[in-house]
């Protein structure tokens, strides 16, 4: 092993985040975009935990709880908004959101 195994956790965390970010940018389905954001947040969580383990400090783990709470609140509101979009336009395609221009 050339690197500490903990680095892999970091790598996984960042990879998760990147997958989420890329997915968010290239997918057009609202639900998928939304889930990509959740994926990003979970990547962040993993990074927090890994650093927490590196640094032997519990703060990072505490932050994970906060991030989870944030993520949960975002889920609740995000899904409600997507639902609203769907009820109004009958679609969850991002390209349909083009009422406003200029």
């Amino acid at each position, binding site marked *: 092993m050339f690197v500490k195994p903990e680095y892999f956790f970091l790598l996984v965390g*960042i990879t998760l*985040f990147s997958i*989420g*970010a890329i997915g*968010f940018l290239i997918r057009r389905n*609202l639900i998928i*975009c*939304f889930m990509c*954001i959740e994926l*990003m*947040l979970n*990547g*962040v969580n993993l*990074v*927090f935990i*890994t*650093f927490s383990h*590196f*640094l032997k*400090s519990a*703060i*990072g783990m505490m*932050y994970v709880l*906060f*991030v989870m709470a*944030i993520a949960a*609140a*975002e889920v609740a*509101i*995000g899904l*409600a*908004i*997507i639902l*609203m*979009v769907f009820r*109004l*336009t009958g679609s969850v395609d991002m390209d349909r*959101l083009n*009422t*406003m221009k*200029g």
Partner: protein
Amino acid sequence: MGNFDLVSILPDVILIGFAFALLLAGGFVPSERQVNLNMLAGLGFLMAIVANFIVMGSERISFFNMFMFDNLAGVFRFIFYGVGFLVALLSEPYICGRIRHKGEYYALVTLSSVGMSFMATSYDLIMLVLGLETMSLSVYVLTGLFKTDERSVEASMKYFLLGAFSTAIMLLGIAFIYGALGTTSYGQIVEAYQKMGGEKTGILLAGVGLVLAGVLFKIAAVPFHMWTPDVYEGAPSSVTAFMISGVKAASFVMLIRVFALALKIVVFDLTTVVMLIAAVTMTLGNVTALLQRNVKRMLAYSSIAHAGYILVGFVALNKTGLAAIIFYLVAYALMNIGAFAVLVLFEDRGNYLDQLSGSGFKYPFLGLMMTIFMFSMVGLPPTGGFMGKFYIFKGALEAGYVWLVVLAVLNSAVSAYFYLRVLVYMFFEEFSGAVAPSAQASSVNLTLLITSIGILYLGIFPQSLFALTERCMTYLP
């Protein structure tokens, strides 16, 4: 350090109490009897303002290094509560008849003000994010208030997705900073950084860069501005007023807190970047605003431009520059709320320029008010907008950014074109009679009076606020 300084968060506690009262009133009082909810919300904000007066003063850090109460926080709280108060005042005739959930509306306004206040008082990055989310989540919902209006829903969706995305980016940045320094508390960040010998590790820079990106997104600086016009146009006008003044101020308190105070050492590396961003932001905002025919959308683009001006104050990164940001934000909040208070009266799906035709003489009071607000936006004396610009430019010139100031003043001259076009339609065109303002409401008139007097007062007697803002910046030479 672990003291539970409940007195310091008294204003927020009061507001949270009122938020719940409003929420429960929204839940239990039948909707036809919910008439005075805006009074209740306004009372909450007034009480919070009074409480803030009482608790403001000495500087303390409490709640396990999570909160910091200083003049900066105090002044920004005044801004947030004041904005909340004015928005509560102007909302009633606007949302009345448009939505049923009035209690929820005011509760969300109140709660997001609490979030803003937490952002201002935060002494830890994670606390900052919590405040930010408290604010943002409420505003996402407020944006989509008109459930049957496609534009409102669309704005909400866009705002939510991009807002959540930027929050995630910011959180990753915070995680990196935490990993690099082992702490996220502002005071300890500086200490830890110095203990490390001031080494700028890659992970620290990446963290700072990501947090900056997140903050710039909230500020709507180029290139993170794309959401602004759609969101501001689509959101209900009263909510746009709230966003354009309150949320913007909160975004800047984030900038001041994090970058000017906590990451001060690191930020010098980023000055060039921010300087360029400021230059591009104000220019692009103004140029695109020139093309708009929808007043709300125009104000959205102009808010981008104003963000650029304010960033100039941040680039200066001296006492004057940062104090000027606060002053500017106050003036900016007043004039935007005022302008939107006029707009909500004319709101009839669109807010297009020609709908205002001739209304200036038909409704002289509204015309006069709009004149004051528009000239303040241009930055002409004797208005608060002028003094704000003056103050910002002073800070930037002190720091030696001559070209930035020249660009900024030229930009503000350009901006005169589209701001004055509103007045062209209001005064120079014949009254079309197409749109009459919705029922004149005394609360809106009160909002207009408060904002216009405030703007003129700031323009003619800026001394008191100048002094106050400078007292906020005791950390800087």
